[in-house]
């Protein structure tokens, strides 16, 4: 008797646990209190506040829609796990990166190739979304772009009589001069492996040639050939670091640069809000990485930092679309750009912040190129390989490893 009771209780417990999961999913999708609930999932913790304000405005205009601002830590992994569970949020806001590519390939998103919204978006960013996913159709609407650029301390530049370098030689000369004056040229933060990427991306994008990854896939080239110059230049930059560069992380670097501990900071514009938080009075400027000695050819690395995709399984695609249209409206897009120091993917909207003046020309000319690491599978773990390179500075070994890892990952597929 006792045993039977225990069996019943345990199975009841098991089933209630299982059904609890199902209930939750239903609840999310269903209307709660006459309102349609849509989940807006994005990967930008720094933009959470901005989105909160925009959502409030949207909900006021559309009282019957309730938008949930979901922004968990490690969002890419969470999103993949949810995709595997087939429990996708209604709207997904991520960058045009491998997470997006994998999800798009897995058929998680609504096809928006014919959407009228795309008419208003700069074609180069739409192309990037296509290129990253490797698909013919468009599965997301690009919203904001970032820029991978050198941040410099204007006060230190003035003090040392330096001007913004336009060529690689000028860049190294400036670093040399700063070092000679007893200051740190670059504040490296190699404890966080990914902080090697901004500089390396800019170097690789400007030296790898236009068809590198297509050629690589066809076996016509290798990292040993295409990435040699970039890697050598990267190692050259390492000479101008500081003493504890292997022990400091991204957060340390933002504070140190804000305090004027280095003249330049090899990051991207996403670091600016954090720097400003540490020292609101800092006078800083940005310029594109001068990678070659031909300033006409310098291209600014700029990727789609935020795109919106509607998941195929959404129960309220109409409402989701309405929210995206709302975010794409000029005034709202402008509010986002101003608060996030981002560049808009919308045609005709320029970033007017004087701090970002140095990048205006590249955007006006369209001298833009996507992040090369968006095309390198994450299981290669480029960031950690680069971190290794900062320690042993062995260019040959690094390039060989890259080729070997590329082959391995391709073989395992």
């Amino acid at each position: 008797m006792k045993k039977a009771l225990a069996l019943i209780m345990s199975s009841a417990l098991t089933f209630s646990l299982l059904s609890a999961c199902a209930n939750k999913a239903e609840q999310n999708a269903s209307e709660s209190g006459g309102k349609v609930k849509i989940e807006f999932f994005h990967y930008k913790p720094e933009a959470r506040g901005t989105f909160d304000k925009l959502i409030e405005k949207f909900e006021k205009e559309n009282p019957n829609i309730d938008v949930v601002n979901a922004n968990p830590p490690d969002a890419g992994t969470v999103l993949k796990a949810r995709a595997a569970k087939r429990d996708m949020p209604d709207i997904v806001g991520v960058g045009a990166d491998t997470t997006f590519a994998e999800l798009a390939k897995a058929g998680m998103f609504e096809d928006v190739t014919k959407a009228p919204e795309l008419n208003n978006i700069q074609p180069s960013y739409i192309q990037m979304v296509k290129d990253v996913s490797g698909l013919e159709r468009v599965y997301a609407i690009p919203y904001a772009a970032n820029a991978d650029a050198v941040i410099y301390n204007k006060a230190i530049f003035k003090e040392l009589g330096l001007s913004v370098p336009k060529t690689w030689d000028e860049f190294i000369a400036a670093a040399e001069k700063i070092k000679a004056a007893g200051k740190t040229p670059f504040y490296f933060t190699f404890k966080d492996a990914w902080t090697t990427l901004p500089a390396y991306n800019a170097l690789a994008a400007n030296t790898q040639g236009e068809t590198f990854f297509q050629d690589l896939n066809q076996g016509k080239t290798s990292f040993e050939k295409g990435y040699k110059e970039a890697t050598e230049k990267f190692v050259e930059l390492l000479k101008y670091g500081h003493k504890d560069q292997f022990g400091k992380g991204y957060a340390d670097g933002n504070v140190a640069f804000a305090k004027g501990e280095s003249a330049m900071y090899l990051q991207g514009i996403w670091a600016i809000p954090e720097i400003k938080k540490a020292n609101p009075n800092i006078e800083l400027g940005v310029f594109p990485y001068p990678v070659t000695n031909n300033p006409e050819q310098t291209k600014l690395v700029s990727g789609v930092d935020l795109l919106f995709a509607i998941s195929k399984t959404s129960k309220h695609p109409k409402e989701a679309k309405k929210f995206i249209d709302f975010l794409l409206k000029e005034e709202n897009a402008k509010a986002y750009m101003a608060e996030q120091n981002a560049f808009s993917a919308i045609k005709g909207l320029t970033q007017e912040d004087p701090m970002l003046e140095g990048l205006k020309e590249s955007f006006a000319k369209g001298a833009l190129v996507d992040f090369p690491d968006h095309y390198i599978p994450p299981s290669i773990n480029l960031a950690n390989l680069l971190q290794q390179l900062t320690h042993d500075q062995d260019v040959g070994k690094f390039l060989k490893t890259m080729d070997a890892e590329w082959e391995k990952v391709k073989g395992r597929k």
Partner: protein
Amino acid sequence: MTVPAVVLFAVFHTFPALQGIFYSFTNWDGLSLTYDFVGLKNYYYLFQDENVWHSYLFTFQFAIVSTVLVNVLSLAIAIGLNEKIKFKNFFRAVYFLPNVLSVLIVGYIFNYLFANVLPLWGEKLGIEALSTNILGSEKWAWVGIVIVAVWQACAFNTILYLAGLQTVPSELYEASSLDGASKWQNFRHITFPMIAPFFTINMVLAMKNFLMVFDQVVALTGGGPGRATESISLHIYNGGFQGGEFAYQSANSVIYFIVIMAVSIAQIKFLQKREVDM
């Protein structure tokens, strides 16, 4: 009451484990709706993957050093706390505290100490090796992880040893004191043999826990510099969930499971034999 336990265990543990083994023979990336069977291909590539070998090397080095340190230290602390000292209960509580704290919080606190406090001291004392963050050094980062892992693991093993020490009958010590035995002789010939079963369980548990090290590494180095401190479980997590190679890393997990089981069984066999001998 066995049936519910078995049911729950089967649903939430055995079944997912079997699923993992199943996926290790496919090429599923973790997301797609479809996958193909690829037989033993994943295993074939696994044995050629330097990164996998390297993660095993690091993990075993870390686990062996940490296991030895934890057992020596917790036994010493337990013996100290078992003596008749003032504020005994207070000290027992203090030494147990690390076990209650979350690994991630401890990790971030130590991260701060290694990044900011320790280099300051190193500079003041003129020790070159300490003047930079040791977590950023390829050679020494693993030592930083050992320090944190041992600091935290000691608490639990100390409790187990304390429990063991209380099972030793006090008559034995009375008898030995009549014979004029020294403290060391007491330990060597009475205490240690009497708590042999506790030594076994502590060794096995510590080794198993350290072989599965994950959160300490995530909080301290994220596997860096390079891949210097990438443990097996971190490698599986990174490759499987972020790298989109779910099936491949499932194969790695299967091997990992077998390795840990083999190590634990070998340890138990060896140490239990020793218990009888003593």
